Every structure is written in C-alpha cells, then in structure tokens.
C-alpha cells in the first residue's frame, strides 16, 4: 500500500476539536451524492436517513434533459430486470450478456460520463442501507474505517 504522506493527509481530514491532542479522523468527503446537503442533519445520523430529506437539487430539477429521460425509461423497463442495487452501466451490460439486445444509445450515453450512473432511487436505497448499518454499529466504540461506506 504505497500511500505517500501527502496522500494520507488528504485521506484523513485533520481538524482541531474536543479531543485533546492527536489527530481526529473523520470520513473523507464522499464522492457519491448521498451526503446530506443540510447542515442541520449532519449530527443526527440516527434520526433520519439523509436522502429521504429533500435534497432540493437533483430530483426536483424541472429541466432534466431528454438524455436523463431516456435513461429513466431504461431504468423502468421491466424486461431488463430490477434497477436498484446496480449502476445503469452494469444493468446494461447484464442485459447484453443475457442477450436482450439493449439499445446501444444507452451504452453510449452512460459511457460519456456526463449523466447519472445510478438509477433515480439508488441514493435512497443506499441511504436506507447505511442507516440500518449505522443503527447496528451505534454501540461500537471505535471510529468507522474511512471509505468503508463510500
């Protein structure tokens, strides 16, 4: 594991806080869109799964383009099976492997990288999963491993 000292500093955010001395470890900022946008919910992890609180940005945006519309149609098509728990690209590749001839435009769109890689409800599903895990690990003393739930 050849992480340089420079990488490690970015990996563990260092903050001065109530713990006297030492470096406090906190979860690195998640690259996924699950972290709550509202500061008020930051501390109350036991209260409510973050994604069930309205984000105000992703879902309710009225001018999602027709590319996203096409991808949502792909998500909703039952022929390709359930959409939750897989990235859209994984689901497209599964459809390809099962010889369902999924439309090639979907693959092209997903590979441009400018669109959402997950289906609409993936955030909520993942938040619920993490929420139930948080309740389970509520009594553990040690801090969480960085990157475990990312």
């Amino acid at each position, binding site marked *: 594991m050849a992480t340089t000292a420079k990488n490690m500093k970015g990996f563990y955010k260092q903050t001065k806080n109530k713990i006297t001395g030492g470096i406090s470890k906190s979860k690195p900022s998640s690259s996924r869109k699950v972290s709550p946008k509202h500061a008020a919910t930051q501390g109350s992890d036991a209260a409510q799964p973050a994604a069930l609180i309205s984000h105000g940005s992703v879902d309710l945006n009225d001018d999602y383009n027709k590319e996203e519309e096409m991808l949502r149609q792909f998500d909703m098509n*039952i*022929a390709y*099976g*359930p959409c*939750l*728990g*897989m*990235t859209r690209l*994984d689901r497209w*590749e*599964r459809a390809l*492997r*099962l*010889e*369902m001839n999924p439309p090639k435009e979907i693959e092209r769109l997903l590979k441009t990288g400018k669109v959402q890689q997950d289906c609409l409800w*993936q955030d909520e*599903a*993942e938040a619920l*999963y993490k929420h139930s895990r948080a309740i389970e690990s509520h009594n553990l003393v040690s801090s969480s491993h960085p990157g475990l739930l990312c």
Partner: protein
Amino acid sequence: MEIDSEKIQQRKLSDYNNLDERFEIQKEMYRGQQYSQIYFARLHLMRTLLYSLAPTWKPHLPVCKVLGLEEGKECIIVGTLFKHMKLKPCVLDEYSKERSVTPLVKPHNFMHPDDHLILEDESGRVKLAGSALSPAIYVTGVVVALHGKETSAGEFFVEDVLEAGLPPQIERPFELKENKYVVLLSGLSIGSSLANPLQFQLLVDHITGHLGDEKEAAQIVHVVIAGNSVEFPRKLISGQNLASKDQSTLYEPIKELDIMLNQIAAGVSVDIMPGLNDPANFALPQQPLNRCLFPGSAPYNTFRSCTNPHSFDVDNIRFLGTSGQNIDDLDKYSEAKSKLDFVERTLRWRHLAPTAPNTLGCYPFTDRDPFLIETCPHVYFVGNQDKFDNRLIKGPEGQLVRLICIPKFCETGIAVAVNLRNLECHTISFSIQLS
C-alpha cells in the same frame, strides 16, 4: 535389508480440473442490491431454456406471460414457483401480538395440507389449481413451464408441467481400462463427542496405504471431504472474550484436522469443502476455508480448499456436490420417500439450491445465478446425510448420473468410493470395537 522395487506400489495418476470459479465471490461487490436481482437472472435464463423446449412439448399452444392470461384460453406460462406455507416461520411472528398462537416446539418439516403454489413472473402472479402440480413436491424458487388455462375464479388450472430436465452431458471417456477411485466423505465433526479419532486415523491409514492393502489404496486418485469437518464447542462462542485456556480448546479441532489432512495430502490430492458447522461464511456459496487454518497441509499442492458447492473434473469425469445444506432445506419444505428423490429433483430442475435465497442463505448476485446446473455431472454427491444411498439415473439424451448421499462419518464410520471406470460406488466402513 533390500527393498524389492517391484513391491513398491505407485499411486495411479489422474488429471484434475477445478471448476469452482462460478462459486467464488471475491469479485462481487455489494451495492445494496436485493434478492430480486438473482431471481430475475434465474427466471430469465431458465425461461429462455423452457421457451426453447416448449414447442417440442406442446407444439400448438401459445406461450404468454401471466398478465396476458385470458379466461378459458389454453396456453403455456413460464415463471418461478412460490409455495405459500402456513407453517413457514416468518420474521414478523416476533412482532405478532398473539404470541400464544406460535407453537413452542418448532416442527422439523413445515408442510401443511393447506400449502398452495403460485406462479410468478415479472408481470404478475397467479394462484395454481389442479392436481397436476403437487405442492408437496415443489418448493419456492423452481422455474417451470405450465400448460393450462385460467379459470373463472382467477386461478390457473394446471393440466401439465414441464421441468427443464437433465442438462446436456459431456460424454464419458471410453478408454479407462483400470479401476480408479475417488473417495468421498463428510461429517468428520472433529471436536464433537461423537467423533472417534481412531476411526478417522484408520481411514487415513487406509487411503495412504499403511493398512497393508496397498493395491487398493494405490487405486485411490482423489479424496473429497464434503463439509462439517470440525465441530466447535458451542458454549464457548458466546461473544465474550475467551480465557487463553478456552482459546486453545477452541482451535484444538482445527489443529487435529490439519494434522490428519497433512497425512492425506502427503500421499493423494485432497479437496476440503466447508459445511454448515465449519468456520466459513454462512450464506451459499460458501467460500473456501482459509489456508491459514491449515498451516501443515496448505504448503502441499495436493491440498485444495474448495467452495461449497464444489465442481471438478477427474479424468474428464465431472463431479458436482454440496455439503448437504441444499438437500436438508428441501427436506424441511417438501417431502420425498428418500433423500435421493430430492437430489434427483434438483438435477431435473437444473438448480442446485432452489430454496435459496428464500429459506437458504445466499449471496445476492446481480447478474447471474451460480447454482444453475448447466452441464450434467457424471457424479452428483451430497454430504452429511443420515445414511449412505446411491442411484444411477438415465437422461433422455443418454446422460448417466450417479447420485450419492454421503453419510456422516462421525456417526456411521462410512466413506464412499466411486469407480471412475464405470461410475459404480461402494462403501468403505471402519468400526472400532472397544470391549
């Protein structure tokens, strides 16, 4: 003293091929998916197969989805069976207000005369009626094709059933002229009060040729241990920290197993599969026991730690087997005259563990169902059964399969030897009489 070189027996050689890759989950990543994914993969793959078989079965009937059923129209539908069982334990019973209703003694078999079957596909589900499909035989998770029609009551009256049947088999090689044996055993349960170390030692001595019967031992080319090799004292595993004295009692069984496996691995190739009581993961497919558990045996290249279920080739004879959890689960949710009936059914349904993930723990695969049997094995074994039993079944395309129930060694002292030349099997039994 001169050693007569003619008298040294050489063990027979054979080609071994491990086919466990489909059962490994190292590359799988859990992303919060549910079991609907594995059911979808199972339904899709089996349905494609059944659609291809339907025209030869009932040529003139249309095939439709559950939602496309019309009353009175005869057709074929394909879907996953769901068996509604009154007595099946439900996690919600814990929260039920009427605690007194749940029986104090849990029945071993959850069948009830009121059980009924439902067929489900992605468009909907329909209750099944008629006597062609017996709820006593089928379990949740089997994919079948049904011929029948919808009744006015909204049920589907079944007239005939099509199962996938035995998968295609690779032909057995004809050139085997000599007898070569594969020894199968299971349920050693080292560490339990039932296990007699002397019995296992006798078996090891027999396999390695130290009992004097070198000719027979030289014909053994492979050994498979099908699960439940150790049994840990349950009272020690209570979540509390263990005193060092208790810690040593905890790993005594594994150390003893390693010593014995070392003796076997030094002479013949041996596969060890995890079982229900072994230190492996709970959900199927169980991953191989960690090599750190066997410091003495692991350095040998004849020692292999394998998955459960386990699939391999010896001299192009295909073996497929489990440590018994799949058959034991079928025993709880359906009935049969003998355990071999369950084994045969799983082969005809082309699925090793149809009750997974419903009542049998299973990993939530997203894009495949590794328990689908794609190639028919020549030998299909199930470990940890109550008694030895075997049957030879023939398929419509010339398939020939030997089904074997391996008894628990700690209780019976019996191991099974399969002859690769003609697929016949016999038992090797050891008993100790201490008077």
